[in-house]
């Protein structure tokens, strides 16, 4: 977890993250770095990454591959500026690409427009 300290997280913040998700103890620094790169790749700045990790420490123990799939899925649905989406609702990173796809198609089937879905995800908190 040295990488979190190097990244600017305080001991108190790391402790809070550990209290929430004890499994972080077992995460390798290289996996955290990979996740940081993934988030930077969608436009996240340091402050967004800090908010995402602090709010949703579970993303640190999620599979990076699955989160990458989710990101690809969201792009495919038509989202842009994904960093604003994850900064507002960091828990979204715990949803699988498959669940997201199902959710999206269910909304469309219920008669919602794509634009409504974008706003729904951006401004209503789904967990």
């Amino acid at each position, binding site marked *: 977890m040295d990488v979190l300290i190097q990244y600017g997280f305080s001991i108190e913040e790391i402790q809070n993250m550990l209290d929430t998700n004890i499994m972080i103890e077992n995460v390798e620094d290289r996996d955290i770095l990979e996740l940081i790169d993934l988030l930077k790749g969608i436009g996240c700045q340091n402050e967004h990454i800090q908010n995402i990790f602090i709010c949703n420490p579970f993303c640190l123990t999620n599979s990076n591959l699955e989160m990458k799939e989710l990101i690809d899925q969201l792009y495919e649905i038509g989202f842009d*500026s994904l*960093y604003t989406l994850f*900064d*507002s609702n*960091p828990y979204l990173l715990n949803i699988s690409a498959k669940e997201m796809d199902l959710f999206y198609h269910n909304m469309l089937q219920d008669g919602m427009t794509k634009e409504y879905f974008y*706003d729904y995800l951006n401004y209503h908190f789904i*967990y």
Partner: protein
Amino acid sequence: MLEEFMLSIGFDEKQIQRIQKIYPPRAYSPSTLLYNIRNLYNFFRRNGVHNSEFVEMIVTIPNILFISIENIKTKIQELKEVGFQRLDAFYIVKNYPYLLDFSYLVLKQKMDEFESLGFRHDQVVQIMSKYPHLFREDFSVFRKRFIFFLEYGYSLEETIRILVSSPELFGSSLDLIQNKILDFKNMGFQEKDIIRITSILPSIFFHDVNLLHKQFQYLLDFGYNELDIIHVVQKIPILLKEDYLGFISNHVECLVELGFTKKDVIFMTCNNPYLFLYSTDNLISKFNAMKELGYRDKDVVSILKDAPILFGYDIHNIKKKYLFFQSIQLEHYLIAHGMFFTYNFDVIQARYHYLSKNDSLKNHYHDLFLMDDDFYKKYHVKKRDLLKGDS
């Protein structure tokens, strides 16, 4: 000498006597035994096996003392050949020393049997590393467990995920699995919920159901209804881990002490079940940090009730937004609209600059918080372009 050495590396007297009494060690002189045990000890220590693990291994199978190091090296090599990392191979040998008696063909066959069920090779390696006892099990037994999950309604992917994550289930009785499913059903969970929960948290099959019942009852007494509880658990199955489950009542009481009504607590936790996963210290410190911004207790209650996700936010994120809203005299407006604190700061700022530039801000502050589509319909500018500064 032998006894002294064994004591020095962690055997107790009873263990030493037991080893000396049973066959074959009793057929060898103490000096031979000392020679063998020293060699073996040095070999395993060099390969990362701790004293206590070494002692346990010898106590489990004293015969190891009479297997040559060359043979052990061969077995490690064989494990590597079927896909295990060197460290995993030692881990398996120390946890399941019986494996030293298995031929290469048996090891390979067991691995192939798992792959024939649909597991990838790396998943089989993961399973066997976690639970090497499966090398001993009969294929028909774990095939039966595998088929049980498929027949219950789990997909192949879910079945594989469960068994890779908790390979002990291969060795558990079907009764244990069925009873746990029945417990969930009795609590009101539907089959699809049970499949989702156990797929995400397979270790739930081994959890103590009494603790679960106790917390369920606590929440019912507090005012939650059965559907609320199922909703919360279904959303975040990890909540059922004993590490978290035991603290649910503390969280609920903590929120009440902060000033939320019971109704608020139920509303907030159903909206954001992650609240149960933050420590109570964290909840209190976030509440106090909001107060330090200048809000009164009841203001903070109102803001957090509207946006319980803020309990999880980085306080610097909230503070930055607060200072911005304060600079445009909107900080009090946000008391009744806590959700606006969750909007991405870059978006708010970009809209602010856009509206100021176009002289549209006066009396239209609410437009800062429009949904993207509504903002576009009103101002014909997309969020993407606003953020790029192209507008």
